[in-house]
């Protein structure tokens, strides 16, 4: 079960819900929020620290690491997932391949525009 929790946390870090170097919920808080036992969260935090995703200090709140070590494999997996989903939705609403490519290009352009 802790593996599922780890994946959820990594995703949150990846998408920026849990920003880098920011404090994260205490073990007990997260256990209450997710209705999952304290020991499961403790184990997940321990493993995440070992992987360099979060930093824990005794007596202080845990934080996301400044440079969280989310291996590129994780990003790849996440991208693959989203691409598959996009392709599925595209088929569902009857868009052509070109439509999908065009949308993707527009999204990339939009992102470039937003970033200074």
């Amino acid at each position, binding site marked *: 079960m802790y593996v599922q929790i780890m994946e959820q946390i990594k995703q949150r870090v990846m998408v920026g819900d849990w920003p880098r170097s920011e404090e994260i919920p205490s073990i007990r808080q997260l256990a*209450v929020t997710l209705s999952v036992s304290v020991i499961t969260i403790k184990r997940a935090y321990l493993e995440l620290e070992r992987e360099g995703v979060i930093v824990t200090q005794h007596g202080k709140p845990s934080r996301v690491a400044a440079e969280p070590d989310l291996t590129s494999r994780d990003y790849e997996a996440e991208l693959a997932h989203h691409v598959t989903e996009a392709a599925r939705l595209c088929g569902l609403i009857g868009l052509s391949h070109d439509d999908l490519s065009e949308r993707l290009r527009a999204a990339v352009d939009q992102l470039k525009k937003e970033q200074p």
Partner: protein
Amino acid sequence: MTELAARLEGVGKSYPHFALNDVNLDLPTGSVTGFIGANGAGKSTTIRILMGLVHHDRGTVTVLGQPMPAGQAAAKSNLGFVSEDMRLYKAATLAWHMEFVQSVFPSWDQTYAESLMTRFDLKAAHPIKGLSHGQRVKAALLLALARRPKLLILDEPTTGLDPVARHEVLAALMEALADESRTILFSSQNTLDVEQISDQIAFIDGGRIVASGDKERFLDQWRRFRLDVPQGTTLPVLPGTMASAAQPHGARLQVVVTSRFEPSMAAGYKAAGITVQAIEPLTLEEIFVTTVMSKKAGATR
């Protein structure tokens, strides 16, 4: 040293047709302990001993620093208990019960009680007799939780609840745990509930605790090997392993379950000329059934 909310040491109780033997159980403060056992395994007897409702013949029981049953009056001010067969007064309303409990326990938290009432979708003005089983369980739980007891003992709190009610009950239990000084012991036949919210687990069977420990470590120690045993090769017996009874002896594909998993075991099989097709984790339910069945068959090698 972790503080303990309750401790049972070598506890026994004999009845004409059932005996509880040498039960040792520690409940560390701030933890959730899931107590799993089949019907008639001794869960309720153990819980009743903890509550001072049944007096044990052997061993010592300490609850919230009080020796039981002698100190039960002092312990009970901070002890909450809900059991599935707990009866509320049918003709009285939930509001009446709330006032009644409040008049006995000064620790009653009315604001919390009202928030639980909303959450559990209960109405204060409803007489108990008009409530469904699920609503009665939630009402009993509300009456116990709103006292903010240090130790909450729940006998089968989720039995007979629909999935939504179960979810509400489990979430309310976890919320009570936000305060680190609270401790919960709950018995259940539903191993999924136990797997979700417990920190430690105790299996009881035939009046004995057959296994107990930290949940994650517990799940870590159990693995199932799917093996391809070529003809003419003997399956080595590794420590803590049990062959699954489901397959005929001498079959090529064998399933072996272990309660003391070590990564080196795979190498042990390989060295014997056996192909390890898969190593799978077990669910708590599978672990429980395997433990009980193997004790019955005396098959633990």
